[in-house]
């Protein structure tokens, strides 16, 4: 597929166009495109969460390494999504999906997360991220309808059950994995990649980092005279 065509199709997926979703599914490059979306959206998510790396004073090559490891961690979480979808489709619907087909659906569903780097935006970022998460559910529902012809109720139940399952796993099994990864990343990279801003008292972190307000320095240069008014 030409780059322009790919961008057009991804735009169509985000706009919830079933035709664009079917075009990707029927294309020989469909699965590769879905995996590409998943990897890029994971990288975008890692970039959106990258300010935490600055807080830990990570720089240079280690910064890039942290971004890549963070991307891999997102991929692991997406793998949980994919396996959950295979199970739920077989339990709740007559569809017997393969892992590749489920990857395609999740890849389409995650297309809005390509914009998750926008979480960086001051004040707006966290709100946009929540909207993107909600849009992932909506896109997944439409993708399930478009690719498998499921009724709205069936698609909704699979997407919501999948989301709940991922949340449950995230609060149980995932935590253990996360702790292991957290320990590993702390050991290898010197930073806990699983930390999020919401978990930190940043003022405490800043104060704990060292003497913030030091002794006075030498007097500075004379103050420049006033400039022209800027009405």
């Amino acid at each position, binding site marked *: 597929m030409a780059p322009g065509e790919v961008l057009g199709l991804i735009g169509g997926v985000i706009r919830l166009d079933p035709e664009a979703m079917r075009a990707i599914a029927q294309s020989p490059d469909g699965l590769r495109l879905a995996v590409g979306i998943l990897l890029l959206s994971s990288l975008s998510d890692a970039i959106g969460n990258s300010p935490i790396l600055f807080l830990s004073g990570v720089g240079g090559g280690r910064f890039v390494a942290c971004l890549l490891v963070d991307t891999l961690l997102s991929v692991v979480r997406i793998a949980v999504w994919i396996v959950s979808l295979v199970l739920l489709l077989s339990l709740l619907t007559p569809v017997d999906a393969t892992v590749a087909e489920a990857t395609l659906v999740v890849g389409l569903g995650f297309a809005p997360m390509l914009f998750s780097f926008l979480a960086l*935006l001051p004040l707006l970022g966290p709100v946009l991220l929540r909207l993107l998460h909600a849009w992932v559910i909506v896109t997944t529902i439409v993708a399930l309808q478009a690719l498998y012809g499921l009724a709205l109720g069936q698609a909704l139940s699979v997407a919501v059950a999948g989301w709940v399952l991922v949340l449950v796993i995230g609060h149980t099994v995932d935590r253990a994995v996360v702790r292991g990864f957290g320990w590993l990343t702390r050991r290898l990279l010197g930073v806990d990649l699983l930390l999020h801003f919401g978990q930190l008292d940043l003022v405490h972190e800043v104060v704990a980092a060292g003497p913030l307000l030091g002794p006075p320095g030498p007097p500075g240069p004379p103050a420049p005279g*006033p400039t022209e008014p800027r*009405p």
Partner: protein
Amino acid sequence: MSDLLAVAGALVTVLVIGLLLSLLVAPFDSLSWWAGWVRQRPEEPEAAPARAAAPGPAAPGAPAPATPAGPFVVFLSGVGTMGRQIDAWEQRLTDRLEAGMRGPDGAGGGVMVTGLFPFSASALPLSERRRTGAFWGRLERLRDEPPGRLTALADQLVNWRNLTQVLVSMDPRYGPIYDAGGARSLYAALLNHGFVPGSGAPVVLIGYSGGAQVCLGAATYLKPALGAPPTVISLGGAVGSVRGLESVDRMVHLYGSDDLEQKLPAIFLPSRWRLARRSFWNRALADGRLRLVLLPGMAHTGPGGYLDPDRSGPDGRSFLEVTAAEMLAVIRSSAAAGPDPSGRAAAVSPSGAP
């Protein structure tokens, strides 16, 4: 006609993308400073040398003046600034404040501190930056030319760049880091001007427009460092509901009835809405640490603004005189309250809302 519309559409698209990109990279100014990525850390921020309000003529043989007892008044400019300079409008205000602190007989007085660049955690003026300094320097020279479309565009670019930093300060994820830089600059400037930590000398931080947010954010770190909570005066401040409100002795928000800019945070930030009763802003309002003072007829800036010496209110005083008088009343009451190392808040009743 359709070609013209297409060009206009393309221009608007480029503009929106440019604004979005600049907003996206805005947090990295303070984050990279914190991570030590930028060469300069503000170990010794450069502020104007001490300009204590000159006392009256000393008697022959009188002892050398002691360490100033304050009040220490720090003025931070609005989002139009590019460096340590303050413009002529702001200079008139700080001159009045200095004169007003002296009293009628020329005795007493406080210390006026200016010359800080508030819109960067590193306190580095825009034109002195390693990578982008040349661009900002060119823009600075452009702004010195006779007013025109290009100078207006340059003004708006600078305003936007600094506004993005104000938004960074308001964001709970980035604010504590950005504010640490602001606090560092303010504290070093105070020490350079003779402030003795723990002395209880009153410290009043005046922030114009976006500068008010920087003052408020820095208060979190300044309160323990100074040994007493500072007083903050916001002049048409674009301020959020931030943790710093818990660390001020009191904050007085002066706002003009024609000032649209200072209203924007109250409209767009849910934590400034009345519904958010437990927000820092509403808690400070409820317990009297935050007082809102209406300045009738005044706009944010320029002619008709807070610092206009030519426009007068109903009582015949110029807008500049009214603004300075309100500020001096706060400064004097802080000075009269005297040393208060306990950090107790002065009781001030709220009045009105913007």
